[in-house]
């Protein structure tokens, strides 16, 4: 059986426009690797070079934010539904972290 993954508009260029794709894996890391094997480039938009979940996306397993389920180590079962949404955030200025995030985003885009 498979895990249903809902893809946000901004990432549908990697899935040929598909809103929902299927994948498999025992953890979120495995699922993302599986998706990336068929939808190349998706992983880089979800996982940082340092191996953490990107700040720019929210990932949910069923009704729970994976940040509360162990993030990339979150356990998955057949029949689970995974939803990816763009994190909505911003603000007037960056404190130092925001500047770091911004420069990281630029380098991620440049690397694409």
């Amino acid at each position, binding site marked *: 059986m498979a895990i249903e993954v809902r893809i946000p508009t901004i990432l549908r260029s990697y899935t040929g426009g598909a809103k929902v794709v299927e994948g498999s894996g025992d953890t979120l890391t495995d699922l993302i690797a599986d998706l990336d094997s068929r939808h190349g480039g998706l992983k880089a938009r979800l996982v940082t070079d340092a191996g953490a979940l990107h700040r720019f996306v929210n990932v949910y397993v069923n009704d729970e934010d994976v940040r509360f389920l162990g993030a990339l180590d979150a356990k998955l079962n057949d029949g689970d539904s995974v939803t990816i949404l763009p*994190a909505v*955030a911003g*603000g*007037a*200025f960056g404190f130092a972290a925001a500047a770091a995030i*911004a420069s990281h985003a630029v380098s991620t885009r440049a690397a694409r």
Partner: protein
Amino acid sequence: MLSIDRSIIDAIVAHARRDHPDEACGVVAGPVGSDTPARHIPMDNAARSMTFYEFDSMEQLRVWREMDDRDEEPVVIYHSHTATEAYPSRTDVAFAGEPGAHYLLVSTREPDTEEIRSFRIVDGVVTEEPVEIVDAAVDPNAVQSYMFGQSPATVDYECSDR
């Protein structure tokens, strides 16, 4: 161009004023593909900050699912800047993840007037667009009789140069 009903703009400004000096944020949903903002959804600023805003991830999931169920999409994503101009910051650009949305910014730094500006943010590129505020209270079938009168049905805010 962003075309938006005056009652929605009024509600967004009221939200921004209410949360001042913290930044306020929210969404205006509309039917998929319509480019028409119709349903105002004020969101919590989970950061509760004067310089940063962030949707609560669980509230966002609920609202995004609700939009999906109603065949809606986020037509407008808005937030306020409370001490600076209504122009997207580097942080805003870094996070902008809805290429189809109008990013509306409201500055509440002046106590009596609001600066309201709208932007498209796609792949890190910011493009300002005019905002047309529409008075739905005016019956569209009655517009002709008002045409040379004193009550304009729309007010256009042109982009400022920059």
